[in-house]
């Protein structure tokens, strides 16, 4: 078995190693000694993180700690920023995404992204979801219909929009628009979904709907979510990484981080003593 595919997890029961359990889970992303600079500004420092499939990995940390930079590096969106330099490696499914031979379109087909503010296209609900598959050459109306329905159902918004698929997406509420964006992301059948503060512009009920959705989606996808809402990270993620000043201070099971974090800085942050 590939060494990177093997995971050994020690389950801590009441603080003692009472049960050692072997789990085999695939690593989706392996970040190895990643450094990133915006010009002279060293924004990410020696990041080592393994992201496992069918898990929700939350990234928390104060503003400017590098969490959004990191997530944007995972689909190479960061390259859009002038003057960015990187060193180290990020392997997606075993292949370094910084390899010259690695096409960015190929990567982004597999890695969808949902942003802080819902950003539907100024088109109908149907067209928003069908847009990606059409670009990928799907023209058959029946297949497109199926993809749209499946994606909207997957994003838990189908029942709310099924009777107005051809109305403009801008007529939806903020929460619905965000779930539409998630549906748009699902339509291209990605492997990973990156979410950059996906609920920060939403009301509390819409936020909870998206959180419920994330729990459903992780059965099929691997999700990496940047959030400022620590309770959200605690509620929905399996693992949490705490970033501070461009470094990963602690990365472990979410239950551990929010009950007995190992590092004083993590504890100070999650209990709201700084940041």
């Amino acid at each position, binding site marked *: 078995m590939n060494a990177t595919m093997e995971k050994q997890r020690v389950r801590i029961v*009441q*603080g*003692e190693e009472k049960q050692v359990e072997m789990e085999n889970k695939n690593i989706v992303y392996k970040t190895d000694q990643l450094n990133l600079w915006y010009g002279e500004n060293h924004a990410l420092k020696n990041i080592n993180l393994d992201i496992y499939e069918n898990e929700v990995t939350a990234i928390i940390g104060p503003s400017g700690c590098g969490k959004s930079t990191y997530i944007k590096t995972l689909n190479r969106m960061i390259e859009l920023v002038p003057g960015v330099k990187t060193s180290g490696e990020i392997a997606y499914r075993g292949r370094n995404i910084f390899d010259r031979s690695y096409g960015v379109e190929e990567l982004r087909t597999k890695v969808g992204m949902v942003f802080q503010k819902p950003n539907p296209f100024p088109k109908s609900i149907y067209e928003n979801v069908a847009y990606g598959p059409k670009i990928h050459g799907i023209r058959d109306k029946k297949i497109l219909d199926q993809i749209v329905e499946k994606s909207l159902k997957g994003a838990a918004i189908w029942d709310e929009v099924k009777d107005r698929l051809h109305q403009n997406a801008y007529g939806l509420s903020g929460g619905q628009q965000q779930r539409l964006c998630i549906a748009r992301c699902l339509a291209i059948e990605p492997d990973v979904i990156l979410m950059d503060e996906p609920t920060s512009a939403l009301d509390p009920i819409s936020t909870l709907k998206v959180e419920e959705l994330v729990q459903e989606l992780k059965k099929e996808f691997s999700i990496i979510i940047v959030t400022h809402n*620590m*309770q959200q990270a*605690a509620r929905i993620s399996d693992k949490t990484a705490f970033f501070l000043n461009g470094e990963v201070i602690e990365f472990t099971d979410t239950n551990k981080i*929010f*009950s*007995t*974090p190992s590092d004083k800085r993590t*504890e100070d942050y*999650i*209990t*709201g*003593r*700084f*940041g």
Partner: protein
Amino acid sequence: MPVRGKFDIDLKELQEKLLELGSFAETALSKSIEALETQNIEMALEIIDDDSNANLMYEDINDFAILLIAKQQPVAIDLRRIIVAIKIAANIERIADFAVNIAKSTIRIGSEPLVKPIVHIKEMHKITLEMLKLSLEAFNDEDIIKAKKLADMDDTVDDLYGQTIRDLMQINLQKPEYLPQILQLSFICRYLERAADHITNIAESILFLVKGRQYDLNK
């Protein structure tokens, strides 16, 4: 003001409320043995009357803690502080109830001369009271060394309990006419022994607070 200044003040207030309840239980327990020794029925009745204050303090701590959880959404050590306060308050409130039980036994014994000097009971009481004081100190200082010491003290109380019950049974054979009093004295021993157990629970809570894992000190 620090980032969570108000929350820190609230946590401090919760701690103070708990120490106040602890101090109340200490006084009640002391007075209960004094009332027994001096066979002072008035004092015993006073202990019973005063117990409603302990119940009010206990309810106040619970309400305050629940509000803190709802409003502050604490995690990690903050959450443990609040959960532990609720658990410790329940244990202290129970200890105050034992003082009431001792007072009730004192009233039942009434003015009948004591069948023997209550040396062992006083010794049990002395150690239990020391345990209670130490547990409150350990809680206040979050001191696990003191908390662990409580487990050893509880063993001493357990030994004294066994010894005292055996003595009382022996006296019962010699003076069976004193059976009702001997029963009440046995109950009192039992109340003190249980009070020490509850203090050991407090020690476990302090360990949980500091270390974030469960300990069983009653093993």
